[in-house]
């Protein structure tokens, strides 16, 4: 374990799995899972990431060739027990690949129970900006509360939910401060991803983030690039870009800056529902117009010199966003490039203008 707060956070990220925890552990897939409720239930929420460059035959057997490879990798790791002890699994519908993962796990538990996959529950948070959608999401949150109570034996009292919301909102505020450090080039993109994605109880995470703010950090240099397109559950693509002389100063996916874009703001279940409904805008769930406006604003705030839309094979939404994003960025004089149909964990730098 490293000694500085940054090193310790990176350790917690790089050694995310297998999970070691005393209490109940609930794995989750996708940022639409309200982790506040898992915390309120006294369990550790552990977000599941894939692992590029490894054999995913097992996952591909069940999910086929048309699913975003990070999810194929997650299923492969689940089947291989790589995450350690996961008592249960929550899967959100943040994108089609996540939904397909849920269906695969549900069906495998029915027809091939010997595989030993954990019990899974779908968190069906919908995102259209209508009150009818809010009403639906509210029903699903209430059902999730009941499921978590059954799984953990812990009552999710309003006080427990309020306390958890407070902790997670505090983390979001701290992560916003991390984003500000990136813009000053006091963190690289690779480091920022680790700081965001470290796996540990939220209170401990918050303490390390506070320590990070007070620590001495190097100042980096490089061409400032903003990443849009696919989400990055691992730092592989960031590493390639930063080795090539870029610094990833921001992104609009939910393993990075987008995690903290919206607070709950009020310690109630209803406020939590609205936070998740209106969270984003993610590529898979937001409109082209919302994405273009957000990407342009965020890239400007980051002082980006270039925006790269990196899109993995079988990640269907981002390439549709790109023409409008490029147009919105042009208005600010920021060039944008689309690097699409990339393999999981790698990027073809020939497509990215260097220098």
């Amino acid at each position, binding site marked *: 374990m490293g000694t500085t707060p940054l090193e310790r956070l990176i350790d917690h990220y790089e050694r995310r799995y297998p999970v070691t925890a005393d209490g109940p552990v609930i794995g989750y897939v996708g940022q639409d899972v309200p982790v506040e409720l898992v915390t309120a239930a006294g369990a550790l929420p552990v977000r599941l990431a894939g692992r590029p460059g490894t054999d995913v035959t097992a996952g591909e057997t069940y999910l*086929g*060739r048309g699913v975003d490879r990070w999810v194929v990798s997650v299923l492969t790791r689940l089947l291989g027990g790589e995450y350690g002890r996961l008592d249960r699994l929550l899967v959100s519908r943040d994108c089609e690949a996540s939904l397909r993962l849920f269906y695969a796990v549900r*069906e495998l538990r029915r027809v091939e129970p010997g595989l030993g996959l954990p019990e899974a529950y779908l968190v069906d948070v919908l995102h259209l900006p209508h009150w009818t959608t809010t009403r639906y999401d509210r029903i699903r949150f209430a059902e999730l509360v009941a499921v978590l109570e059954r799984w953990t034996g812990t009552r999710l009292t309003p006080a427990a939910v309020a306390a958890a919301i407070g902790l997670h909102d505090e983390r979001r505020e701290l992560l916003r401060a991390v984003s500000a450090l990136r813009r000053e080039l006091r963190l690289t993109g690779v480091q920022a991803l680790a700081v965001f994605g470290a796996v540990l109880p939220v209170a401990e995470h918050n303490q390390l983030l506070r320590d990070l703010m007070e620590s001495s950090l190097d100042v980096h240099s490089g061409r400032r690039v903003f990443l849009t397109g696919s989400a990055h559950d691992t730092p592989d693509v960031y590493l390639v870009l930063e080795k090539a002389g870029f610094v990833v100063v921001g992104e609009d996916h939910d393993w990075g800056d987008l995690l903290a874009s919206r607070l709950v703001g009020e310690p109630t279940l209803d406020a939590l529902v609205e936070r998740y409904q209106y969270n984003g805008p993610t*590529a898979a769930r937001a409109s*082209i*117009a919302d994405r273009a406006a957000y990407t342009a604003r965020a890239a400007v705030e980051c002082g980006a010199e270039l925006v790269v839309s990196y899109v993995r094979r079988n*990640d269907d939404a981002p390439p549709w966003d790109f*023409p409008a994003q490029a147009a919105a960025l042009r208005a600010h004089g920021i060039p944008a490039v689309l690097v699409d149909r990339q393999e999981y964990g790698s990027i073809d730098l020939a497509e990215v203008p260097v220098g």
Partner: protein
Amino acid sequence: MVEKLLASATEATRYQRAWFRDLRASAAAGDPLALVNADAPQEIFRAMEIPYVVNQWWASVVAAKRRAPHHLELLRERGYPDYTEQYSSISLASLFEPDPDAAPWGGLPRPTIVLGETVGDGGRKIFDVWGQQPGITYYALESAAENAVPVNWWDLMPHDWEKAIGTARLDLMVSELHGLIRFLETTTGRVFSERALRRVLDLVNEQAEWNRRTRDLIAGTTPSPLAVTDSIPSVMIPQWHRGTEWARDAAQRFYEEVESRVRAGAAVCENERVRLMWIGRGLWYDMDFYRRFEERHGAVFVWSMYLAVAADGYPRYGDDPLRTLAARFAAFTDQLYTPPWSCEWYVKEAKLHGVDGVVHLVSDDARGSYFTNRALRAAGIPVYELHADNVDTRSYQESTEQALGDWLEREVVR
């Protein structure tokens, strides 16, 4: 090109051409026109007498005319992907056609409203692009999912749909329909009558019952009186006109024609040795494909989802018309693509039709094939996976036919 065996198919095609001509005239005169996804509640438009074109039907016309590559090029020129969701994006490309005279059927008239559910990741974006065009409004419908579902949806759906789908999804879809109706009333000036909707729903159920009789008749008849190339136009063109008396009567005529062939002992392939099931969308750019295995292998494609889902997927009975309609669409795609519903239904249908083998068209999209194929093989039915897109000819391998033929001889013909 395979000649049409059935008068009902010839009549359906004639009707469709006349309908499309009138539709173009109506749009040119400034009437509202909707473009709707195949799995969207078209019955609302029918009840309000708002003309509509089905997105995927138009894509099938473009593909049948071998114009899909050109359409995909039009998308690529505008910076949009030409390699994903082609079946849903081809109609959008028609909007960018610089030479309408070269377009199939005189070209797709410009819609004023587009309606689609927020399923998948790319589908919604395609409709976003529609909505960015001048004079076109995109109305998005939510699409919800469920945790636990009873397997036998085909038994439950006609009457016990609340049990099959779940209250939360139905409540949401009903509220979506309320919103859609108010939107259409406001933007088109057309009137929504619940009485009119009840009539539409009755007609749709009657049509579905005729389709069920036809499906059952074909399932129980060997040798098969017709191939899927005969049944698809006879069932699908009326499907896109469902809720009209013409469509209901067309379904009845289709049944009567099949029944007459069965009574006469007519067979599409006198030397039938193998009954095949085609899982997946139609291979619109090469419908002759389905017939080329008859002479060489005595293999007849007796099943496609089009008649089967018309039989099992549409009937809904209930007192509350909006909730009943919601029950048709709140989980429609799950019937075809989500395990356990999809795979258990395909097994049920395979057994009903006594098929000897299954050809499963698998596109490079997220729906996957494992669970369906596993269930069929567990039931003792050989499965061949054919990897191709159903409208994008670029994805089709010339070696496919030979490989499929080899598989037939090796694993199916005994």
